Structures are given as C-alpha cells and as structure tokens.
C-alpha cells in the first residue's frame, strides 16, 4: 500500500525549495530521503521545506525532517520549514522541535491547500 506523496524541488537564489504534498509516513519516508539525496547543497545554502500541502505526518515523518536537517547541516547549509500545517505544528511543539527548526508561515496571499 503506497501512500500519496508528491515531491518537487526548484532552485532559488538562496538554495532549494523542496515542496512536500500528501502524506509523510513510514511508507513514504524512503522516497523523501531519496529525493533529499538528489538536492545539491553547498556551504551557506538554505533548504526550505514547504509543508503547505502536507496532509499527514507521523513520527517517521518527523524523523525524515530531522534527517533532512542532518543532511543540510552536514553540508554546511541551513534548513527551514515553511507553511507548517496546524496539526504538524502542534506535534513539533510537543517535541520541542519548534525551537530547533526555523518555522515560517506561508507567504501572504498563498492559499493553504491543506485546509
């Protein structure tokens, strides 16, 4: 049973934006990690993970985000989370990860597809 997870990357002047839509759980985490490995990151780059379309995230999903953080830091890059859905924000808060990841709201005017 495969969960639906859509991953797209686009380069921006400061680094890369990785857009995650769908469900990030133990069934799809591997695909996230595989996609992560293909993103070129250099010293000083910023990896922005856009979670605006994230419908579901379990502890394996959290682990995947932590792996992304390790991956960025190992290359001297930074990581930030963008448009984190409310449910995921709550979990991040309990885990104390809201102190670990820079978290940014969605830019003004963007619709939140994960309503």
């Amino acid at each position, binding site marked *: 049973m495969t969960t639906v997870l859509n991953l797209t990357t686009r380069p921006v002047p400061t680094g890369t934006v990785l857009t995650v839509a769908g469900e990030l759980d133990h069934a799809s985490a591997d695909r996230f990690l595989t996609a*992560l490995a293909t993103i070129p990151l250099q010293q000083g780059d910023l990896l922005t993970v856009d979670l605006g379309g994230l419908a579901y995230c379990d502890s394996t999903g959290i682990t995947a985000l932590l792996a992304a953080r390790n991956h960025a830091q190992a290359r001297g890059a930074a990581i930030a989370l963008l448009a984190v859905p409310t449910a995921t924000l709550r979990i991040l808060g309990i885990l104390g990860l809201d102190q670990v990841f820079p978290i940014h709201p969605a830019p003004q005017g963007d619709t939140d597809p994960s309503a």
Partner: protein
Amino acid sequence: MCETTDGDPEQDTGAGGTDAVAGGEDADEAEHAQFSALLEDSAEDLYEHAPCGYLSTLMDGRIAKANTTLLDWLGYTRAQLVGCKRFADLLTVGGKLYHETHFAPLLAMQGKVSGIALELRAADGTRLPVLITSTVKTGSDGQPLLIRTTVFDARERRAYENELLRARKHAEQGGAEAEQARAEAEQARQAAESEHARLRQVMAILQHSLLPPDLPQVPGVKAAAYYHTASADQLGGDFYDLFALGQGQWGFFLGDVCGKGPQAAAVTSLTRYTLRAAFLHASDPAAALDTLNTALQERYTGTDPRYCTAIAGTLTPHGDTLHVTVASGGHPPALLLRADGTAEYLPTPGGLLVGILSHPHFTTATTVLNPGDTMLLYTDGLTEARTADGPRYSEDHLHAFAQTLAPADAQQAITALTGLLKSFGDGLDDDTALLALGNPAPHTNPEGE
C-alpha cells in the same frame, strides 16, 4: 497343396452374385448393372479383397480359409497356411500365451470375442499389430463348426494407443510430481508457519524483556501500569520503569521511541538501560535525560536519526507526602489526580525530544503528592487515538476524563484508562503505555472513593 479334402466349409454359406453383365433393353437395368459392376464385382471379390483380413479356422485352430488381403499382409501363399498352420502359429509367443489363457476360453464360453489386440508374425518374421474379432459359426444342429476371424490392421491404432499410454504415464508422473510438489509446498508452508510461530514467540519474549515484569513494591507508594501494542507482530516502542535509587528514593521514567519494529526495539532497550544507569549517577532527572541524549545521538545519526520522547523523575518520601521531580524531553505532560477531586496537568513545556541536538533543553517541574493524590504518565498513543467521531482524543478530553475520575488511586486510574483505551477500538492504532504512581489515601478513609 494341403487343402482339406472336405471341401471348403464356407461353401454352403457362400452366396454371391455373378459377374454383372450389361444386358437387357431397359436403360435402368443397364445402369443398375453398371452401378453394381462399378461397386463390387462379386461377393467373392468382396471377400478376397476386403479392407480387412478374413480367416476361418476349424475348432482345433487349423486354418481352413484365408482371404487375399491377409495373405498379402503376412506374405504367405494360400498353400502355406490353409490346412497347414494353426491360427496360434501366426501369433508371437506372448500372443500364444494370451490366446490360450484368455482368447480361446472366452471364445469357447461366449462364442464371440471382439477387439483383441495381438501381433501376427509375417512370413519374413516382422510383426503386424492387429485387432482380432472372432465368432464361432455353428451348424444347423447347434454344434460349433468353425471360427470366423476378422483381422484389422492396427498399426495406426497401436501407435495411437502407445501414445496414449505414454501420455498417461507422463500424466501420472506429472500427477505424482505435482503431488510431491504439493506435499513439499505443504511442508514448506508448515515450516514457515512454525517458524513464524517461533518468531512470534521470540518477539513476545523480547517484548517481555523490554518491560519490567512487575512493578516493584515501593513502600508508601501505590504503583500500577498498563501497556498496549498496536500490532501483535511488531515490537512496540513505548517503555517505562520504576526502580530504587537507594536511601528511600525511587526513580521512574516513561517514554516513546520513534518508529516500530526491531530497530525501534533496539533503541528502546538502549534507552531503558542507559536511563536506569544514568539515574544512579545523575543528580537529577534532566541530567539523566542528558546522558541518554548523548548516547542516542552518538549512536544514531545521518539519514537514520533515532530519538525518543521521555518523561523521567524521582520520588522522594517526606513524611506522608511524596516529593516528585520530573524532567520532560518532548513528552506530553504528566496528569495529576488530586484527592479533592480535581485534576490538572503538570506543565513541562519546551523540552526537546531526546537524541537529536547536542545541547538540548529538558524542562523540569516539581510537585508534591499528598495522601490520595495520583500522578499519571502516558504516551501519546492515548491522546492521539481517533474517537468514533473522527478527531483525536486530545489533551482536553483527557483532562475532562481525569476530572471525573479523580480522586483515584493508581490501580483505579489504570483500570479506568484501560477501559477508555479499549473503548477507542480501532481508533487506537499506536502503542500506548500508562504508569500511575500514587500516595495512598489515609487508612481511616473508606476505600473506593
């Protein structure tokens, strides 16, 4: 020539037309005659050149008459067979035996035998597979006179039969092989099943080893616990423990390792033993979590980060109260059920999950458990469970539930919450651990309140 002098026994039965001669004025008659001429000249010709062999033998087997077709097939002249040989002489040895033990008795008893497969020996020694049908011709007084035999060339049929026999053997062999394969598959299936059962047994034992078999008796403390695994096949990632620290002090912790399965179980194992050891050396729960953090971080990095959430603390009796210090690493807050019937969370906000950062912050809190108070620790399987309506149970509902429950001793609290968990049914899809530590109510108070 050794023809019998009795004359042809067949003579009195012979009937036949003469050669048709075209004659007569009638055109129809001429056409009819021509038609007959075209088809068969005479009964004799029909006999001699029939598509099958004809053979007539006396009752003792001596050949009395044979048609041309048969003679041609066998390569004999009439003189070589008639009156000289017996039918059995034309058979192979095996055929002779069969003839004597089956064919002849059948013919004697029934007066007719049909469709028997035999082989005739030709004059040049080659064998001709044939199908034989014989009937006994009796005279007007009912006495058996001779045996009339029809011989069919069975070469094609024999080839076909051999093919059928071969195919049947092949099919039987295939059937036997299939049966063997099925038996082997069944064996393999049974082996797999018993292996599966064995693994389940192993997992159950391992699982068991990850939990304290029984909570210890703590003087002046009532303790109770409950553990639920979401999947019978997967080892759970929740853990808890209660142990003596010496000098009347007790340590405890409860937590949740991320993930499931053997890897998570390994982390659980490491976590339990590290925390236990850390407590014996650390001065406070936060320091113990710090030690755990270092151990996990050291071991699990990169693309397979492993972490856990945990709430750890100490229990120190002071007179008839219990002083509690807890530290939380990314874990839901403890719930306090007071003797006066109120319930409240013991907030420990901002603590970071254990095993990710180098210098994590773990939030510490303290409280006092008076007689009749109970502290409840739980993992997020409880608050994340789906209710019948759909949304997660949540901390708010748990709070409300606790308020109706309080006051309760440790066992009552566990019993009530176990019931709550069961009421979620399929909505509870994660592991859940519960640990309740209570200060017993004074003896003078009635039980059950």
